[in-house]
């Protein structure tokens, strides 16, 4: 694919893309393009609130994980007072990488090049030959690690490279109502079952983010084997029932699949259901008790899925929650992180069972994930084709759909579950960022 001739060419394309969305079109080219990738780095990942870690990954003082926002490598650490910091994983002296491991525990980080030492909060505390070499000209407080804004919601730690801009609460804009479905499994909330599966794929992050923003449409075909072996009591037709909810102007979306005949909160142990009823509002309980599959994306690249799944077809399902981050690693390429979240206060045997259900279905060897990735790598490859330059995809499902009256959740909620409304909202927000208007 040839590059856009210049910045004006790219800007024109962005405005044509935004105009096309209002008519239900989105360009294939967006899913695998060098210039679009670069623009996303500059205007989207540099400004949006991006997911970093779950608090339970760094429970104790000194615990840290290394994560990325765009092309920036960050240390996400809990300091000695329990406060979570995100700092650029780069020594301020000559730029060496401070932490080369994915996780660990440290009160201080000492650079392996010239020995500058920082507290896990990012503060510079040690400079070798400070007196002799710098003769009082170096002020330690001016050379701490580069800090990034951090905020949390229900255990989710987000970072924002933009020191200005909205708060996390404002950014989430009401989507918290739906996130609670994955996070408020009792008053203790949820925890990660362990470190994430981590792999790379020739896939554009947007394809996955879109799929998880509520692509109920693909399930009966992409995951047909599950229906075939009897994993789903619903058929391909009933699978489409439910709602698509999105937060206009924010980009977040969730698909709420509702299977007829599912008992309320089926697949959760009674204790967890009781905990959910305590932790959630009556409105949330009213909506969520009916949900079979919930698949949602926090714009831009954090997703969740919850569904009951059994180890053997026909056995009663076990509910599991997976959380995933689609980290853009280059045009048409990404690093995938996949976690399983379990209710903190749940019985250990349920946590283990839910985790086993998750591994059979998701993660790099998961039977659902395998097929998704096969499809997503092919979509990405197609999007890099020269002929695709001026080709749009249809995003016209549910163009005319009216909001469901009296739905207790916030945002724009339409029926059925199979719908492009969430995706139009997502790509419209993406367009705002790429045009520099967000």
């Amino acid at each position, binding site marked *: 694919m040839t590059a856009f001739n210049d910045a004006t060419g790219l800007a024109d394309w962005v405005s044509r893309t935004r105009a096309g969305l209002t008519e239900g079109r989105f360009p294939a080219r967006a899913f695998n393009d060098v210039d679009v990738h670069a623009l996303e780095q500059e205007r989207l990942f540099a400004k949006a609130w991006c997911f970093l870690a779950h608090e339970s990954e760094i429970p104790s003082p000194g615990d840290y994980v290394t994560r990325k926002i765009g092309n920036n490598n960050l240390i996400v650490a809990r300091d000695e007072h329990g406060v979570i910091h995100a700092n650029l994983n780069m020594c301020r002296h000559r730029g060496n990488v401070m932490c080369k491991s994915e996780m660990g525990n440290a009160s201080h980080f000492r650079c392996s090049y010239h020995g500058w030492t920082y507290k896990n909060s990012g503060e510079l505390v040690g400079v070798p030959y400070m007196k002799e070499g710098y003769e009082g000209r170096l002020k330690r407080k001016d050379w701490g690690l580069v800090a990034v804004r951090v905020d949390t919601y229900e255990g989710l730690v987000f970072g924002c490279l933009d020191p200005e801009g909205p708060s996390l609460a404002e950014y989430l804009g009401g989507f918290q109502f739906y996130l609670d479905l994955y996070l408020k499994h009792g008053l203790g909330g949820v925890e990660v079952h*362990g470190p994430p599966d*981590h792999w*790379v794929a020739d896939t554009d992050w947007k394809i996955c983010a879109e799929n998880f923003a509520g692509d109920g449409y693909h399930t009966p075909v992409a995951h047909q084997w599950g229906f075939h072996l009897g994993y789903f009591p619903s058929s391909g037709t009933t699978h489409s029932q439910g709602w698509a909810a999105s937060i206009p102007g924010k980009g977040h979306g969730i698909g709420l699949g509702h299977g007829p005949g599912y008992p309320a909160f089926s697949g959760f142990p009674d204790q967890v259901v009781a905990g959910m009823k305590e932790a959630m509002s009556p409105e949330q309980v009213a909506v969520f008790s009916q949900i079979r599959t919930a698949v949602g994306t926090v714009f831009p690249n954090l997703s969740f899925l919850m569904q009951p799944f059994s*180890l053997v077809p026909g056995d009663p399902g076990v509910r599991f929650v997976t959380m995933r981050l689609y980290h853009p690693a280059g045009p048409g390429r990404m690093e995938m992180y996949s976690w399983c979240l379990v209710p903190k206060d749940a019985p250990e045997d349920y946590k283990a069972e839910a985790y086993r259900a998750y591994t*059979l279905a998701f993660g790099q060897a998961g039977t659902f994930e395998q097929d998704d990735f096969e499809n997503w790598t092919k979509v990405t490859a197609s999007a890099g084709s020269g002929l695709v330059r001026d080709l749009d995809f249809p995003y016209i499902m549910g163009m005319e759909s009216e909001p469901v009256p009296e739905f207790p959740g916030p945002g724009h909620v339409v029926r059925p579950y199979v719908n492009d409304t969430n995706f139009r909202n997502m790509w419209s927000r993406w367009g705002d960022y790429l045009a520099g208007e967000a």
Partner: protein
Amino acid sequence: MGAVDCDTVAAVTEFLYREALALDERRFRDWLALLTDDIRYEVPVRVTRESLADWELSPTSRIFDDDRDTLEVRIQRLETDFSWAEQPPSRTRHFVTNVLADPGEGPDEFRVSSNCFIYRSRGDDPTPSFYSVARKDVVRRTADGWRLARRWAVFDQSLINAHNLSIFV
């Protein structure tokens, strides 16, 4: 020399070769037949850690965590027309080396460690995936021949460079 006699080591090694051949020839039913009913098939997640860290293989996270029933599900899935991840199928070659057998829990069980290098080619993609894997198996002698009772395999990579793992290790 180890505590297990040469004939047994040779028999166990041949068993691992035949098991690998069944996978590479995609005779998944034959492969299942080489597993005991109480098979445990585990692949822990590896995490890049400092040298002094207490673990590098996650005590709780697994890429595979299967028993006989779930391996049966994986194979039933491959037998449908809709296992898209393996349409067309991966071409694999398992190179099994460094086989060492030690006495196991009973007279008929052996703890067998091996290295396994897996070449995986997909479609007409000229770039294959390579996986270097360490395995610690339990191999059992039964009236019907040798059987795999436990496979514990770990990848030498922490960030795995393939879009999925729709093969067996």
